[in-house]
């Protein structure tokens, strides 16, 4: 194929319609050879639709795709692979019980008389990993290696197939700060070696650091393509949301007063792993402060919150909320003074097939306000829902009677937040409240949490996003393997230091003395 074009992939004037909605409306994306090109947009802006078109999963109504200046038809993912387009999905597609090497060659195995020829494959993978600095243990099973190494395995998978165009779909969502830095370096190396990279993200810091150019989409429409060196984060987020966005959390100094949540030596036993998922956690949250539990996913945060809110049993220690011992209370007993914005909004937060209004009264349908001798007062439910929707600006197709499933992730989360904050409890537990949301929604949720704090609520936040931890909290507790290993002041601690605590490489004991960890 003659390479007389500046661009390796061009998607020109792509329009893709779904019944009732234009997911992509005349979008143009041009990827230069050897560049890192970021694709930025809110949830539902059309990023994934556009990538699915490039991958042959959808056929656009209008528009063409060119590879090296030549028009191509991509009818299915096999066509995309044949054109050397590869993708690292947000959730890795690896076989857990296979070794790294087996995973890399899976689907592209060399065989001789029906037998696998692993020797050559091993050599090729080894070369690739040396060349790009992708360190993996080829003989380790995927289930035993770190998330970062799993991602490197995914990248090697693409390289093994001689892919020239690499798509990274929100690759940093699952990584620690150190791993993110490594990934950025790897991406730069790949670009230097002539690979072209499409980088889907809504994290502005990373885009500014690693990308050469950015294409911004908003509500299915093309906004602009800009060079990262000619722009800044504020401008990008304004373009993405379509209005000026407050990136920094604005808040005054915390003025904590009385203790609301008082936990002593709490343990939660994990039946599957036959050990404590949460071990001897002692902590307090006071009125008027936001305390954040930081840590890498899977270090006991989920179990801790489940124990606290009653979704699992507490196997040791005591929990007091507002001075009342609720260690053994039922879920509704515990929630007497606590509202809970759950980690998994689809599993716990919402009954997806219920209407919005029914979801908004999920804990309160037994209140006399909403029922009379067991008969639901539909009028007051409707009225209440309408008030909340207005007050918290929850947007949906049909207002109170919208089925929750059909709402966007951001608005689902807003609905949960509306419900929980309106219950007006002394303690607000928010678990990853901004996960998967775009800057507009994040801005809103952060301001709501700060408002709760200023109103004298105690806020307990669990977050995996370091940036959120640093900017929102008044006090940081780092959880590692079910224990609180450090307490930090967000104004004094650096992201790097937090990262070390989170990875278990460093820990404080009671006297703030640092000892060598795992």
């Amino acid at each position, binding site marked *: 194929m003659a390479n007389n074009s500046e661009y390796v992939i061009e998607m020109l004037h792509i329009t893709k319609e779904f*019944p*009732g909605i234009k997911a992509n409306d005349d979008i143009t994306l041009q990827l230069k050879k050897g560049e890192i090109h970021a694709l930025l947009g809110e949830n539902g802006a059309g990023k994934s639709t556009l990538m699915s078109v490039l991958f042959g999963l959808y056929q656009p109504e209008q528009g063409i795709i060119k590879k090296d200046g030549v028009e191509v038809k991509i009818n299915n993912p096999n066509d995309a692979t044949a054109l050397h387009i590869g993708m690292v999905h947000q959730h890795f597609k690896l076989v857990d019980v296979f070794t790294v090497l087996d995973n890399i060659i899976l689907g592209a195995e060399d065989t001789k008389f029906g037998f696998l020829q692993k020797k050559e494959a091993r050599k090729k993978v080894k070369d690739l990993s040396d060349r790009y600095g992708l360190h993996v243990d080829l003989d380790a099973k995927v289930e035993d290696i770190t998330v970062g190494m799993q991602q490197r395995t995914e990248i090697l998978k693409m390289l093994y197939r001689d892919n020239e165009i690499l798509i990274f779909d929100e690759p940093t969502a699952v990584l620690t700060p150190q791993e993110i830095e490594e990934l950025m370096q790897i991406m730069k190396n790949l670009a230097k070696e002539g690979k072209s990279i499409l980088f889907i993200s809504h994290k502005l810091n990373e885009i500014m650091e690693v990308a050469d150019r950015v294409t911004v989409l908003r509500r299915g429409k093309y906004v602009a393509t800009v060079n990262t060196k000619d722009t800044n984060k504020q401008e990008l987020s304004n373009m993405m949301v379509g209005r000026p966005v407050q990136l920094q959390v604005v808040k005054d100094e915390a003025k904590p007063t009385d203790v609301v949540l008082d936990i002593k030596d709490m343990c939660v036993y994990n039946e599957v792993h036959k050990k404590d998922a949460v071990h001897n956690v002692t902590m307090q949250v006071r009125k008027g402060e936001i305390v954040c539990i930081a840590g890498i996913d899977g270090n006991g945060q989920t179990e801790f919150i489940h124990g606290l*809110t009653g*979704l699992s049993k507490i196997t040791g220690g005591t929990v007091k909320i507002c001075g009342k011992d609720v260690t053994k209370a*039922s*879920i*509704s007993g515990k*929630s007497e003074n606590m509202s*809970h914005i*759950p980690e998994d909004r689809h*599993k*716990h*937060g*919402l*009954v*997806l*097939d*219920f209407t919005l209004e*029914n979801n908004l009264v*999920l*804990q309160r*349908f*037994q209140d006399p306000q909403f*029922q009379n001798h*067991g*008969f*639901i007062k*539909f*009028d007051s439910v*409707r009225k209440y829902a309408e008030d909340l929707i207005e007050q918290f600006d929850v947007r949906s197709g049909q207002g109170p*009677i919208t089925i929750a499933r059909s709402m966007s992730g951001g608005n689902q989360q807003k609905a949960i937040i509306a419900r929980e904050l309106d219950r007006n409890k002394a303690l607000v537990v928010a678990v990853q409240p901004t996960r998967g949301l775009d800057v507009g929604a994040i801005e809103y949720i952060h301001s709501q949490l700060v408002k709760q704090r200023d109103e004298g609520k105690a806020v307990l936040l669990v977050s995996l996003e370091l940036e959120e931890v640093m900017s929102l909290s008044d006090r940081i507790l780092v959880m590692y393997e079910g224990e609180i290993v450090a307490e930090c002041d967000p104004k004094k601690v650096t992201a790097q230091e937090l990262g070390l605590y989170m990875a278990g490489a460093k820990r404080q004991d009671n006297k703030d003395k640092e000892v060598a960890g795992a």
Partner: protein
Amino acid sequence: MSGLKKFFAKDGTKSVVSSLISILIGLVFGAIVVFIVGMSKKTIGVKGAWEGVRLIFFGVLNTGRSATGALTWGFNASNLGNMLFRATPVILTGLSVAVAFKTGLFNIGAPGQYLMGTLTSLAIALSIPSSAMPTWLIWILAFVGAMAAGAIWGAIPGLMKALFNINEVIACIMTNWIAANLVTWFFDGSVFCNVEEYGKTGYIYKTSYNNVATTKLGLDKIFAGSQANAGIIVAILLAVAMYIMMNKTTLGYQLKACGSNRHAARYAGIKDKRNIVLSMAIAGSLAAAGSALYWLAGNTEFFWSTYQSLPATGFNGIPVALLALNNPIGVVFAGIFMAMLNIVGMQLSNLTAYNEYLTDVIIAVIVYMSAFSLVIRMLLNGRRRKEGKK
């Protein structure tokens, strides 16, 4: 309020339309089968095939043949009455399955619960001598007792699911067979007064032997020559009660929340385990009520020795519920419709050379299509959305 009503109406219309479409497809398919079978059989021919097709659609309104041999049509009181009578138990088993479905449970245990209702209703109706108390009281005791027995039988799989997370389908199938053998064993050893037939005793049970029978409530006048009785009214009342419970009360709200997302319900402080057991108990009592209404009618005869198998009425609840898209009111119509097909089958074999089992083919197609009624509903939804955007 008017907005909410409109919403229910809209949702309701969609359900009704999609169910009607699947019924229509089933009937049309059945007509085609009837036609093909007719054409391939010398004894039937074109004329017979055409008669068959008409009977498939309007069999209940057929009044036989005129002197010239042509089919005559009109109000067939006995057919319509029998249709209502046969619909009664299947409406209730359908209701049983539908209520469980709404709460996220698949109650395939309706046959077992039905059998427990059979056992209890017959045992009570035959063991209390009608000289001891008024027969209407015996009837009520038998009916309530059957519902209680069904509730207990339904609660067993519910408890297994709630406490040990055992799939309710497996537990239901187990309890079905336990019920079948329990009933056989029980009647084998019973000493109730029973019908003597062919010199055998202890063989056939009939509640009218003890003067217990469901009141006719004048339905025998309207539908002369049929078995119709007040049972159908009880069934309809129960369906309305279930509709109100599911849609208007906090209990229904809780049950649906647990069924739709057990985790979210638990998160909100709703007692999910209690609700699972309760839901199965309600389902069980409904299936048993259907059985009680059937056997307490007074003109039905129970042959215990054949009851080592599971009653089809229990299983027929599943297609009825599917066809009604689990709407309690829809179940009434779906149940009557299934009973109508049953009557049509008899008409076919009485009046033409067709075999009555042909209607089973039609029922099968409709059951199959009822699974598609969800698809049809989705199509209707998609269409409306598209129109809305234009």
